[in-house]
């Protein structure tokens, strides 16, 4: 730190925030320098979101100081002043989907001087703004037609146009495929070189290493560590986040001597299964004890394969059999009856009924087993849910708590409980660890492994390398076709290359 170094883009010292009896932030600090990409990592509940709230003026800190570029933070409630200093791009879209990009950029500040909106000028201003930051988006596009990363660019451009030089990115890559991530990161690096600072919040440690220069770790509302990314090993980072030495992501890596016997009758078999426009005819065979991975980026069709197997979509052709029994196409009840358990891609879309209790959500697939003559007895429901809560270690107040009150990782465990409730022969898990913290991730993938180890089959559909590490065999899909098959000894490079549809990378 030389004397003439510019003041940090944001500096927080000794920030304390309480919600009732809970201390959400306990004297934490954070410093982000101009032009820096600073990662903020920590498990769910570590206080990251609360800090973002404090930094963006949504929460008023109980103690501590926050400065932007050396000046004290604006008064609480002065929205315009906050907007000119910092902005947050959330996981959830903050654009109005049916308005054009230009309108979204200048929402509520169309024209300071004129009484009427001049659409031509608005569009020109939008064009200037977008091109100034190298964003290639037509300002006349409706926001709903943008790709996820384009939408994020627009939100970033809007924030910059307010004068903000610090952008908080909350899990920006959660809904992006590898290509989108690459485009996002390129743009972010460019903006960094123009002096924009980023606070990057992610569960993806790999991305932290790719993009960020410094990292800060919070744990249990406290500051644990701040260091240049290059000086922290991944294991140390995980240890700082969890407060314990973990054996690492490879604890349940499929051993070469997997229990699966190549001669055994397959549990799940699919023949010439296809869905026009999504994936071309493919054959699958999963043996007892085997975990099959379907790797692929967002448009590869791997998710569609998972949905077809679970009966959520009707296959265009082909058959699915579980232990020899044919499964009726496009029927979830029949798939369940055949023994296919399903962990859907997005727990908010297909996984949970947020207003209802943990017990109800966990038993949604087994309501026929909880009492005689179509009744569902509350006592049996609770008992069943308690068993699930214990075996999956779901952190909840009790079976009656509405599932919306749980943290992301625990919500995902409820979805898993629902899938496991029928003791499935085949577990189909689509991106089972999306948006959950490192420790939950380990236990969720451990569950998938245990299902297979009990003599059943599991299919993991994902583009996350950590998810695919539990698999004994990985099929890589690209544009609806299987382009490569890997046994458990694959390297990250080859699998990513196959998912990207390139022959060899690096």
């Amino acid at each position, binding site marked *: 730190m030389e004397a003439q170094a510019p003041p940090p883009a944001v500096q927080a010292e000794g920030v304390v925030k309480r919600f009732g009896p809970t201390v959400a932030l306990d004297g934490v600090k954070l410093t982000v320098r101009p032009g820096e990409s600073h990662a903020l990592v920590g498990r769910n509940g570590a206080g990251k979101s609360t800090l973002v709230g404090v930094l963006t003026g949504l929460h008023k800190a109980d103690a501590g100081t926050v400065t932007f570029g050396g000046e004290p933070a604006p008064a609480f409630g002065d929205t315009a002043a906050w907007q000119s200093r910092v902005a947050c791009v959330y996981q959830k879209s903050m654009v109005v989907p049916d308005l054009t990009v230009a309108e979204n950029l200048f929402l509520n500040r169309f024209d300071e001087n004129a009484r009427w909106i001049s659409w031509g000028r608005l569009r020109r201003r939008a064009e200037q703004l977008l091109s100034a930051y190298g964003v290639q988006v037509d300002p006349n596009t409706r926001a709903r037609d943008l790709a996820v990363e384009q939408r994020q660019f627009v939100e970033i451009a809007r924030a910059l146009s307010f004068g903000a030089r610090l952008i908080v990115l909350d899990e920006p890559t959660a809904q992006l495929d590898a290509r989108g991530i690459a485009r996002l990161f390129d743009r972010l690096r460019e903006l960094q070189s123009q002096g924009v600072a980023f606070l990057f919040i992610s569960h993806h440690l790999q991305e932290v290493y790719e993009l960020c220069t410094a990292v800060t770790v919070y744990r249990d509302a406290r500051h644990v560590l701040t260091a240049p990314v290059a000086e922290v090993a991944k294991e140390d980072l995980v240890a700082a986040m969890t407060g314990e030495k973990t054996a690492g992501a490879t604890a349940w890596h499929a051993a070469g001597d997997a229990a699966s016997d190549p001669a055994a009758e397959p549990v799940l078999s699919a023949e010439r299964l296809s869905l026009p426009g999504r994936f071309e005819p493919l054959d699958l065979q999963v043996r007892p004890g085997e975990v099959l991975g379907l790797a692929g980026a967002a448009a590869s069709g791997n998710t569609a394969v998972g949905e077809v197997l679970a009966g*959520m979509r009707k296959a265009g052709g082909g058959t699915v059999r579980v232990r020899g029994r044919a499964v009726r196409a496009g029927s979830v*009840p029949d798939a369940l009856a055949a023994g296919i358990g399903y962990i*859907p891609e997005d727990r908010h879309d*297909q996984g*949970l009924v947020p207003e209802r209790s943990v017990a109800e959500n966990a038993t949604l*697939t087994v*309501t026929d087993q909880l009492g005689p003559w179509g009744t*569902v007895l509350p006592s049996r429901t609770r008992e069943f849910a308690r068993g699930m809560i214990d075996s999956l270690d779901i*952190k909840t*107040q009790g079976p009656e708590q509405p599932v919306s009150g749980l943290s992301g990782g625990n919500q995902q465990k409820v979805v898993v409980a629902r899938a496991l409730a029928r003791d499935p022969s085949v577990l189909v898990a689509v991106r089972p660890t999306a948006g959950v913290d490192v420790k939950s991730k380990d236990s969720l993938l451990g569950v998938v492994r245990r299902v297979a180890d009990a003599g059943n089959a599991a299919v993991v559909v994902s583009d996350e390398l950590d998810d695919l590490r539990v698999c004994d065999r990985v099929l890589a899909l690209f544009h609806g076709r299987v382009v490569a098959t890997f046994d458990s000894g694959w390297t990250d490079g080859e699998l990513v290359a196959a998912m990207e549809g390139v022959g060899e990378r690096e």
Partner: protein
Amino acid sequence: MTGTVRPSTADDFDTALKGSPGGNTALSRLKLIRWSDFSLVPVILVLMLIGFIVSPVFLTSDNLISVVQQSSELSLLVLGQALILICGRMDLSLESTIGIAPVVAMWLVLPPDGGRFAGLGLLPAWSAIPLCLLVGLVVGAVNGFLMLKLRVNGFIATLGMLTMLRGLHIGITEGKSITDVPESFRYLGKSEWFGAPAAVWICLVLFAIGGAALAWLRHGRALYAIGGNPEAARAAGIRVDRVTWIVLAVGGLLAAFAGILYTGHYGAVAATQGDGWIFQVFAAAVIGGISLKGGRGTLFGALTGVLTLQLVVNVMTLGGVPALWNQFLNGAIIIVALVVSRFASGERQD
């Protein structure tokens, strides 16, 4: 909001576990009861107190019985609507079904000559009730077809159905009341069992059956899942469209049954039977804690909603408020009740 709640709940759980491993369950269950379902009970008690002060007639059994008798037909529509709302749908045409179902039954049953109303006389008199119920079922099923197969907007589709059936009603009856209804039609609406009108007992039983189904039957529980998140319900193997369709048909059936009770009660099918009721139906359901977005609410709450609205009218009548002001006060009380239950429960009403 969730961010602020989550950490404390986890901590509470830990301390509760350590503190009282045995007594924890009953306590936590008590904590998690949705008090919004009971938020109208104090309102009803206050209304009864006011009624008692306003007029000595109020607490007589004759008066109270007349209140519940008048509630009975409306409450059946509310029961149907509540089930449909919990499923995340709505059906405006219930208020026309309560009129058109008896009219069609009369039309097919009454002889072409003799009475003031010329029917077709195609079917015997005993078939009037089954016909009426069938009409209700068909109306509900057609609504289901429009919403679930053709995927048109349910609000507008049932609005069209409401208007169309109202017009059919007026067209068939030529805008007149049908007074010569068969005896079978009159029985339920006017007879008394155990000192109270039969209609009241029937309503109570139907609410009890409905409430029990929602609490303890798998297909009843499924309504909450469907209304709360239809995609999650589908992924869990619930036949979402089929269940919704059945619920819509049951809603029409209940409206037709309300039509039988109403016709029996007044001994005639009025030309305006059910006209404008749908606002009361929605108001009763929502102040009773049923969410318009689906997935939330209980039938007990819906029933308290109906009773609240009817008690207000009764107390005002006894208090000598001119009938011309009834509509104004009715609307005002709906808004007041909404605000009260919103803050009593602390939950948003969507």
